[in-house]
């Protein structure tokens, strides 16, 4: 039986979310930006699990399964977009992908 206070548990999830946010703000490589979004999704799911454990209800785990489905779709679409971007621009730098007309 875990007796860590729930504040500490939620604090852990919050720090994980903020690490993902910092990564998203700082990195310019699109693979790293997608990875940071993954970290943020994961920590949001962690908060759901902590709350479900706190109230002893199964709803938190149900919500985590939904987050899992959303994450899978997001990663599939994001990586497909990333492949297209690399195909067109030959780079993954988010700063250089700022032209509406497609250059070659």
């Amino acid at each position: 039986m875990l007796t860590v206070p729930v504040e500490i548990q939620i604090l852990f999830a919050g720090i994980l979310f903020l690490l993902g946010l910092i990564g998203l703000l700082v990195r310019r490589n699109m693979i790293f930006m997608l990875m940071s979004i993954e970290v943020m999704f994961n920590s949001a799911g962690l908060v759901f699990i902590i709350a479900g454990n706190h109230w002893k209800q199964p709803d938190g785990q149900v919500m985590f399964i939904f987050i899992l489905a959303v994450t899978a779709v997001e990663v599939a679409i994001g990586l497909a977009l990333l492949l297209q971007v690399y195909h067109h621009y030959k780079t993954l730098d988010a700063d250089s992908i700022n032209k509406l007309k497609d250059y070659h």
Partner: protein
Amino acid sequence: MNVFFYIAAAVALISTIMAISGRNAIHSLLFLILSLLAVSVVFYLLDAPFIAALEVIIYAGAIMVLFIFVTMMLNVGIERTTERKWLNPRMWIIPSILAAILLVDFILALKNVPSSLSINQVILPKQVGISLFSTYLLAVEIAAILLMAGVIGAYHLGSQKKKVTHRYLEKK
């Protein structure tokens, strides 16, 4: 049990920091897998063994392998872009300060959490399944529609189309 929680949390935080600050994409992805496995240990300690298994199978097993395949397919490795000058330590200061402000805000908001129910019970996967397919049945169907849209969208975006450009728009 508490020691295991703190160890897993420390491993998760350190490996996440390594993942978001690394240069090499493959190394960062492997650190991210380590972070997800540590979070899975936390799930197990939080009496959610089913979710811990899902985390390992789907997150670390499927999603991250997809990432690694795409990274290897693009063959980027160490990117030679303008990010190099973004990655000096001064660029981390302002986002870190903003995130620290959010963290302090969050800690202050955590002051009055209502106390837990003291019943000592594990939520079994059976309860999760019953709740999933009775209370949240509509949400399950919406998730199915979302997955369908994701499959079609990924197929459409992933197909390499022949580029069609009007001849006036082509560069001389």
